[in-house]
């Protein structure tokens, strides 16, 4: 009974995750984007915690806490500070207009579901049906990285891709072994720092974070 309840909640959160992914794909303002990212992290942490509670996998609590600390608090805060220091509160331009992006996104999501369906059948976990959602959100953030034209949103896309991956880990397999989780988390953290450093370098070189300035190296 509890299982079914928790699984329902997890499914709900999964839906929320996907929704947020779409929202981020559509979002124009960078600050909102960061907020959405934080919310996504929160949803992820919550679902992880619930799975932990439901299955009694204690190490998932760590993972949940880790997610909370990193994805909900630390990284968004870092990004905020960066935005302030670089003072780049511009609106985000897309390479493709939003409706097209959304349509592509929906297509991608459906593809992900159909891809994940056969696997979900054989999953033994309470949360199997969420694997498709995880894959969908991964691909959606991939799409987002493709269409964004500024450095910061691209990074946020990357981070939300990580969210999707974590969600896949927890939903499909009650989480990876702890050591791996920690390692991944460490990588994400370091990665974010390095991204931060990069923002400054790029800024000082091109006095803008528009990645279209970075198309010099090519075959001509």
């Amino acid at each position, binding site marked *: 009974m509890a299982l079914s309840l928790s699984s329902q909640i997890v499914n709900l959160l999964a839906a929320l995750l996907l929704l947020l992914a779409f929202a981020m794909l559509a979002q124009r303002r960078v600050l909102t984007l960061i907020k959405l990212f934080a919310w996504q992290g929160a949803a992820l942490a919550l679902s992880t915690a619930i799975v932990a509670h439901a299955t009694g996998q204690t190490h998932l609590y760590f993972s949940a806490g880790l997610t909370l600390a990193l994805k909900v608090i630390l990284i968004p805060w870092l990004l905020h500070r960066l935005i302030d220091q670089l003072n780049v509160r511009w609106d985000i331009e897309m390479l493709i207009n939003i409706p097209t992006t959304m349509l592509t996104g929906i297509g991608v999501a459906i*593809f992900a579901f159909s*891809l994940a369906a056969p696997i979900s059948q054989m999953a033994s976990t309470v949360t199997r049906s969420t694997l498709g959602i995880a894959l969908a959100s991964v691909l959606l953030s*991939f799409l987002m990285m493709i269409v964004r034209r500024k450095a910061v949103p691209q990074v946020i896309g990357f981070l939300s891709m990580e969210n999707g991956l974590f969600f896949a880990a927890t939903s499909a397999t009650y989480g990876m072994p702890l050591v791996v989780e920690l390692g991944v988390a460490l990588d994400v953290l370091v990665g974010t720092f390095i991204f931060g450093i990069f923002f400054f370098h790029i800024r000082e070189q091109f006095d803008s974070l528009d990645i*279209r300035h970075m*198309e*010099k190296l*090519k075959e001509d």
Partner: protein
Amino acid sequence: MDSPPSLLAAALLAATAWLAIGLLGLLPAGAAFVRRALFPAGAAASLALAALGAQGVWYPASSLVLPLGLPDLPFHLRLDPLAGFFLLLLGAVAAGVSVYSIGYFRDEAGARLRLICLQYHFFLASMAFVLLADDAYLFMVAWETMALASYFLVTTDHQRPAIRSAGFLYLLVAHIGAIAVLLCFGVMHGGGGDYTFDALRAAELSPFWASVAFLLAFFGFGAKAGLIPLHAWLPEAHPAAPSPVSALMSGVMIKTAIYGMVRISYDLIGAVRWDWGILVLVVGAGTTLFGVLFALMQHDLKRLLAYHSVENIGIILLGLGMSMVFFGFGHREAGVLGLIAALYHTLNHAVFKGLLFLGAGSILHATGLRDLNAMGGLIRTMPATAFYFLVGALAISALPPLNGFVSEWLTFQTALQASLIEHGVVRSLLPLFAAVLALAGALTAMCFVKVFGVAFLGRARHSAEKAHGDARLSERLGLAWLTAGCFFLGLFPAAMLLMLNRVAASLTGSSLSAQALESNWLWVVPTQPMQASYSAIIFLLVVLAVVLITVRLVRVFYHGRIRVADPWDCGYPEQTTRMQDTADAFGQPIRHVFGPLYLMKRHLPGPEDANPRYSIKIEDRHWYWLYLPLARLVEYTSSKIGLLQRGRISVYLLYSFLTLIGLLVFVR
């Protein structure tokens, strides 16, 4: 008498001796050491190798496996009559060239000379290993090492851009050829077994795959031999190298390609087909005519000689092709005759072309000239060189009683066996190729009358006076050695015929007719005495006798007073040396007859030209229909592919995304 394996071991030793000598060249010793010690040592090794090769022809094949090479394919070596014959060729020519080099490299700087010595001896050794190799891997290694060493020798004077581009073109064509050869081995292999030649011999090929293998080999080795249209590198690269190296490249290296063709088609594939023969004949005929006609247009002596190498490779192919045709139709005796003719011409060309290139080298050394139009009257300043060069010129012009004549005579005799063939068309084709050969011979004679006449005879044109003396002693020794070769091969063909018959027999299992073999040393009888025979000795003796009698009679009848005067000026008082025929002038009738063949850029002086100059530039059409288009094709493709990478990161991400999606779709 020693047993065969030790023969092979000794040959291996000689080859490694070359390697060792090359490495010794790296010692920080003076140039004198390199010239006085290393090159003579190399010559000694060459002689040893020649002797061993000559022995090897008469022994059954022997093989050896070295603990080197690939784990499951160690180096296999084998000395059979064919390899022995080519080793003889290599050693004999290399001996002369090495001796010659002692004097030729006298004013090279130490460091440079050491490098040359290294590359030179590695070049020789790699050729020896090409001939000894008995598995695909060792063969390829030796083959490419040969290309590499010769490439570095060609680019010795790399400061000159022309030489750099020549070297590049050479190595590129060589490498593409090598790739084709490698592919050919793969095709012959056709599954199962490993890549030893024995395994390749054993492999059963369907006619189709056999033909594919042959075509690949023909292409690959043709690239090295300089068949049209793959010849373009040859007249660039051979002249670029120092003259001894040019002699080796033209004399020996391109022969390794002939070796490869014979080895693969007669030995490894085995069943020769007549339509291959037709292909070889057609290409050979084209190469022959092309080579000689372009040689006639040259005024750079070494380029001219290089074009003649192209021509002679064509002549060799004519013999080879006829042999293939006859074998294909099952007339084995005639086939053997053709093979013998081809191999004989291979040897002859090695000798006289080596001789000619060395002669050119001596001229270059004495006068600093390669342009015929600047030479003239050299016979006075360098009589010895003139004599040796004249012998070479007569030999390559296929004049009796020298060696060039014998092999072309044999080729003609092969063509005259055409009546044996039942297939009407083919039967009437062969004489045509004989006609081509006859035409080429006459043209060659014309070309070398031009060369010798313009370079050595007449009066010195402008800058040729600063010729300081004749060739050095060691140079003369080298020249004399090869000259002796021309005479020997021309005067005692019967002995060579027996040797080559042995080679052919070991390859094809059949040999010449009994009458042909029982003919003694004096006579050459290809088939039957009634049909044809030739005796160079008697021929020479009679000519000498007749000439001497004439001289004697004239002496008897005549008081022998001689007055020396200026040549008759035909009433034009001011005769300048510029009024002599230049090389270009000599080619004029040919340009008139074969005009469409050439791409000519002529510059004629105007009527009121103070200092009139006539200049003409002949270009090879192949550049414009083959080489440049190919280059452009690659350029175009790469420019199109370059569009993949325009520097936009989003696009790159898109690539990854699409790859991922595509694969996922593919998986489902």
